[in-house]
């Protein structure tokens, strides 16, 4: 018998990879991640030298410092409300986001 249970990370990746381009995929990933992990806001930027160039976001601004996490290929996630995440959840979330980024890097769908 095959289990139909999907982890939160799997749900994020599955939703994101339906999109054609990286920015859209990240936006979709942010939307699903905020819902599943209870984050108020998640946004993404690309490093260009010292500049972190905004890509996309989902959620409501908290006006509190966001936690910046590298995703590889010069991309960063900014997690607002990350202190609310239970133990291990942040790692699970970041692993999913990195998988999304890697997918687009491998496919070369959009310049990373």
């Amino acid at each position, binding site marked *: 018998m095959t289990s139909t249970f999907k982890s939160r990370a799997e749900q994020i990746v599955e939703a994101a990879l339906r999109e054609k381009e990286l920015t859209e995929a990240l936006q979709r990933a942010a939307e699903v991640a905020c819902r599943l992990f209870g984050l108020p806001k998640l*946004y*993404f*930027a690309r490093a*260009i*030298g*010292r*500049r*972190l*160039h*905004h*890509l996309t*976001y989902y959620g409501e*601004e908290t*006006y*509190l*410092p*966001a936690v*910046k996490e590298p995703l590889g290929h010069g991309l*960063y996630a*900014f997690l607002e409300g990350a202190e609310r995440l239970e133990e291990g959840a942040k790692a699970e979330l970041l692993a999913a986001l990195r998988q999304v980024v890697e997918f687009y890097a491998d496919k070369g769908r959009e310049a990373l």
Partner: protein
Amino acid sequence: MALSLAEKTWRDKRLEMIKRYEEEEKRQDFINEAEIWRILEEKAHPEPAEVREVLAKARELKGLSPEDTAVLINTQDPELLQELFETAFWIKNQVYGNRIVLFAPLYVSSPCVNNCVYCGFRHSNEAVYKRTLTMEELAQEVRVITRAGHKRVLAVFGEHPASDVDYICRSLETIYATKHGRDEIRRVNVNAAPMTVEEYRQVKEVGIGTYQVFQETYHHETYRRLHPPDTLKHSYKWRLFALHRAQEAGIDDVAIGVLFGLFDWRFEVLGLLYHAMDLEREFGIGPHTISFPRLEPALNTPFTTNSPYLVSDEELKKIIAILRCAVPYTGLILTARENPELRRELIRLGVSQTDAGSRIAVGGYSEMEKEHILERQQFKINDTRSLDEFIYDLCQDGYIPSFCTAGYRAGRTGCHFMEFAKKGLVKNFCVPNAILTFKEYLLDYASPRTRELGEKIIEQYLQEVEGRLPRLAEKVREYLARMEAGERDLYV
């Protein structure tokens, strides 16, 4: 003085490229002169009720149409003008809070192949000494600037083969890399001649902050007359769409401006508005900042004092207040061209950024720490206060100085920044980051009297944040304590 063979070859090659661009560019010139004159004429004598209606609309922070802006342009009644000034100040505080962002202009190169009638750095002006900094000299300039406490510069380049795109990129890398203890530049904005999309991509790759190109004048005939044929700056279209090309290349913080005094200021204000509207229409992102420098005397440049369109102090006040009402989300930049007394008045009309402790000669910070020499400058500056003196005066007037560079390092650029600015919410970042960066200044660079006054200002603004966003205020207090303990560069 004629161009050298190398200069001429470089210029001619670029001229060819600009001509090709002009033929291929599909965008339509958005400056419709007949339309601008018609609007100005139609709204030539607004009734007080109409003016007040427009001011009420301005307070909604959604910006103004050209017609509404023309109403304010044509307002003459002193009482209504006072209401305009109060509205502008209110809008600025709603959007950005009562903070003033500080920067240092950094003139990196002055040789230029152009011959603009009003410019002290024009090629044919032998009375002004021109030079291009080596990377070592540039690093020395940065050391002097950062030793005073600055964290952001506006790097200015002439249009010349010695300061081409590769030189601009090397300069940005040098500025960012020049660090000494806690002294460093965290954001480099750039004022340089229009480039191709490919060249903009190169500049983007080295971490440009905001890119600014001023149209100087939006009036076509005046533009062509002041920028002689066969110079790179002669092409109106190439310059008008410079920031569109920058956006195409992914530079999403772009800045517009006019050199007031070249043509009728009323026309120019509407020109700026149409420029902002066109950027918004095509990219969804308006100008990050608008500048409104006035023509100032320059050596051997009679046009600067003879122009029939010189703008009075009273007119400049109106210009600033109108721009604040018409484009509420944008940063408004006032420069040290204006004298200290006037600057104090102008800041109250909606200014959000200004320079301080400025030297505008190439190499001016290293070589002229105590004086300003017109023979080496593009024009004359009238506020020669040091950064610390300027900050002290700002604090006395109740403002909080800011060295914030958080936005572009926290991914709040382009449309993301605009979302906050347009809703009047960006102050929720601006004020806390002003507090934090001003604290750094007080700890590391301030004179005793500025430090004493500055600490009181910080407490005052902290209480304001506490009233609106208590959790954020708690975080800022935590960061301030960490800074007292030695940490730096903390921001929200």
